[in-house]
C-alpha cells in the first residue's frame, strides 16, 4: 500500500499547491513555504508522537494538554531563574513521563484509550492551570526568542527540529526492531505476543514517545509565541488526526507511514491558507476539517482489508 498511497498523497499536495499558486503566486515561493513549515512545526512534532501511537494501535487525546502543561512548567522554571536548556530538557522529560503514565494506564485499564486519554487530558489541563493560577506566563528569556529567529542555511531552527523529529520517528519505525514491534502491536497485539513481543512494554514506550514529542513541541511553541498559555495547543489533536486520516494512517493501528501523515498535515495547512485567501470564515474551515476527517475515516474503514 505504501507506494500507491505515497503517490496519492503527493498528487493531492501538488494539486493544492498548484491551485494556491494560481490564487496567490506569492504564497508558493521558497520563503513562503519555509514560513509555512515554521507554522506547522508544533503540530508536526505532535503528529510524530501521535503517528507512532496510532501505528501502535493506540490513541492519545491528551497530547495537546501535555504541550500546555510542559510549556507552563518550563516557563515557570525559566521565570524562577533556571537556564533555558536545563528547563527545556526537564520539560521534555516531563512530557515523556506523562506519556508513559498514559501508556501504563491504557495498558492496565481496559477502557478505550480515546476515553482514557481524554480524561487524562482534562487532568493535565487542570494541572497546567494550577502552575500559574490559570494565568499565562510572559517575559521568557531572550535566548528563546533568539532560537525562534535563528536560521541555518536560511531555514529556521524550528523547522530543523521538526525535520529532525520526523527523521527520528521514521527511522525508528522503519529501521529498528522496535518499529516492527510497534507495527505488530497495532496490527494484532495477540499475534505480536505469540511472536514473543512484550506488548505492554511496547505500549509504554509508544505512549512515552508520544509524550516526549509533545514536550519537544511545547518548547517550539514557547519560543514562537514568547509566552506560556494554560490553554495552548487546544484542538491540536484534531489537526493531527485529520492529517493522519489524509495520509492514510489507519486509526485501527498497524497500517500507514509517518511521512504520509506529515504530508497530510501539510496538505491541511496549505488548504487552510487557501481558504483564508478566499475569505472563508473560521466556522466553515472547521466544518470542512470535520468533513475531511469523516470522509477519510470512511475511506479507512472501506480499505481495512486492503
Amino acid at each position, binding site marked *: 500500500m505504501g507506494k500507491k498511497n505515497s503517490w496519492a498523497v503527493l498528487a493531492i499536495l501538488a494539486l493544492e499547491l498548484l491551485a494556491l499558486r494560481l490564487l496567490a503566486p506569492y504564497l508558493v515561493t521558497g520563503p513562503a513555504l519555509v514560513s509555512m513549515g515554521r507554522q506547522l512545526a508544533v503540530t508536526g512534532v505532535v503528529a510524530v508522537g501521535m503517528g507512532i501511537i496510532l501505528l501502535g494501535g493506540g490513541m492519545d487525546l491528551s497530547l495537546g494538554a501535555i504541550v500546555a502543561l510542559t510549556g507552563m512548567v518550563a516557563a515557570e522554571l525559566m521565570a524562577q531563574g533556571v537556564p533555558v536548556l536545563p528547563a527545556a530538557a526537564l520539560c521534555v522529560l516531563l512530557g515523556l513521563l506523562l506519556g508513559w503514565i498514559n501508556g501504563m494506564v491504557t495498558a492496565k485499564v481496559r477502557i478505550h484509550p480515546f476515553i482514557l486519554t481524554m480524561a487524562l487530558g482534562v487532568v493535565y489541563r487542570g494541572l497546567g492551570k494550577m502552575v500559574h493560577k490559570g494565568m499565562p506566563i510572559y517575559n521568557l528569556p531572550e535566548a528563546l526568542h533568539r532560537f525562534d529567529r535563528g536560521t541555518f542555511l536560511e531555514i529556521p531552527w524550528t523547522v530543523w527540529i521538526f525535520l529532525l523529529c520526523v527523521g527520528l520517528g521514521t527511522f525508528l519505525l522503519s529501521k529498528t*526492531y522496535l518499529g516492527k*514491534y510497534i507495527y505488530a502491536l497495532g496490527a494484532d497485539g495477540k499475534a505480536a505476543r*505469540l511472536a514473543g513481543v512484550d*506488548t505492554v512494554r511496547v505500549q509504554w514506550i509508544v505512549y512515552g514517545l508520544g509524550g516526549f514529542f509533545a514536550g519537544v513541541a511545547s518548547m517550539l511553541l514557547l519560543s514562537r509565541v514568547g509566552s506560556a498559555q494554560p490553554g495552548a495547543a487546544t484542538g491540536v489533536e484534531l489537526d493531527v488526526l485529520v492529517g493522519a486520516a489524509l495520509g492514510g494512517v489507519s486509526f485501527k493501528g498497524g497500517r500507514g507511514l509517518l511521512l504520509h501523515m506529515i504530508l497530510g498535515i501539510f496538505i491541511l495547512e496549505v488548504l487552510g491558507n487557501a481558504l483564508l485567501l478566499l475569505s472563508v470564515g473560521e466556522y466553515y474551515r472547521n466544518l470542512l476539517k470535520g468533513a475531511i476527517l469523516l470522509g477519510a475515516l470512511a475511506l479507512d474503514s472501506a480499505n481495512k482489508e486492503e
Partner: protein
Amino acid sequence: MEKEILRAVDLHTEQEREPLLKGFRLQVFSGELVGLVGLNGSGKSTFAKVLGGEVPLSRGTLALEAGSVHVIQKETRLVSNLRVAENLVLAHGWKPARILSDPGKKARLVEALLREYSPRVHKDDLGGSLSPAAQCQVGILKAFLGGARLIVLDRILEYCSPKEERELLNLVGRLKAKGPSFLVTYNKVAPCLEGFDRLAVVREGKVVRTLHRDEYSPDLAAQLMAGGDFRRNKVHQAPAVRDRTGAAALSVEGPVPFVLGQGEILGVHDGSRGRAMALFRQLLGEEGKEHLAVHRGIGVLSEALFEHQILPGWKPGENLLLAVAKRVSGPLGILPGRVVRHMARTLPGEMGIPEGKLDLPARNLERDQQFLLALRKAVLGGAKVLLVENPFQGADLVTKELAYQRLGELAAGGMGILLFSGDLGDLAGFCHRILLFQEDGSWSIRDGLAMGEETVVQSIL
C-alpha cells in the same frame, strides 16, 4: 420426481483479479444431502459465499428461489446475550397479528423443536454460552424454522470433534426427511462422507466429478481432490526419539505431571477438550502474557489461535522477521539490511512460497503455506518445545500430510512436541506417547506407537 432446488451453471468469480470459481456447475434436488469436497482454496467456500451473497458473480447463471438458501459458516454465531429460544424466534420474523391471534405459539413451537431435535440444548441457555457445534445445531434449526429449502454448512464439520460431527449429521439426516436439502463443504476424506447422497469434488474452482453414494471410495475421493496420483498414508511413523534418557525438553508439574523428552512427540487427547485445553493454557501462560512462554523456549502452533499465528496483512518475510527482529538487531536496535533481505526473499523462497507471493500479504497464501509460515516463525523464535494444538483441524488432506511430515522432521532434529488433538485417530501410530484424559476425570499415558485402530476405539469407549 425430485424438485430442483439449486442450479449453478458456469459460475465465475474473481477476487483481486484472481479467478476463484472457473466454470463451477452444480445441481441440488429436494431432500438431498450433498457434500462439496475439495482442498482448501479449491472454491467450496467461495461457492458458499456466492450463495450467501457475499461474493459477486462475474459470469454464469445461478437459479434458486429467493430467500430459500440459508448459509451457516464456521464463524456464524448466535446472538450471544439472547437465550436460545429468543435466537430461534428471531428466525420467525415479527408479526403482531400472529402474536395477538395465538400468544405464546412461537415459544411452544420453539420448545417442541428443541426437545425433538436438539435435546442437549436448553431453551434458556444463552447463545454465547454454547459450544460452536451446539450453536451450529441451533443455527440449523433456525434455518429450518425460517423455511430454508437449502441449508449450506460451510466448513462446519472440519471444526467438530468426531462426537459433535456424529450429532450434527444425525440432526441433518432427521431434518432432511422433513424436506430441506443440505449442502455440506468438507476438505478431507472421512468416514462420515459415506452417508452423503452425492459428493461433488471441487478442484481449482470447478466440480471435477460427482460421486454418487454407491461410487464413493475414500481413495478415489482423495485422488480427485488432490489431483494426480496422490496416496493417503494411513499411519505416520514418528521418528525415533533422539534421547529419551537425556535432558527433558519440558517438565510439567501440577495435577497432570509429566516429562517431555527431547525429540519426543507426546500426544494429548481429551474427547471433551476441556482438560486438554486447560493444560494448553497452563503451558502457554496467562492471557496477555503469552510472550513469556516464547521467551522460555515454547513455540505455539494452535488452531484456536491460528488467526493470530501470522499477521495476515504482512508479507511472509515480514512475518518471519518479526520472530527474530530483536535477536538480530545491532546497537540502537537497528535491523541489519542483509537479515531483512534474507527474511524478505531468500528464506520464504526456500520454504516453497512462490516468488509471486513474496510481496503480497500472507493472507494470500494457501492454508498449507500459512501453516508452514507459522511453524517456521515458531522455530525462528527459538522454540525448543512446540505446543501444537489441533493442527489437522481445518486442514485439508494435503496439509495434514504436510503437517505430519514437518512435525516428524522437527522431532528428529531434537524438538520436543506436545501435540493436542480432539481426534485420537490423528495421534495413534504417530506420537511416541499419548496422554489420555478419560471422561471419569482420570488420565493415563499410553504407548502411542503401539496404539492401533482397535485400541483407539476402546480408549474412546
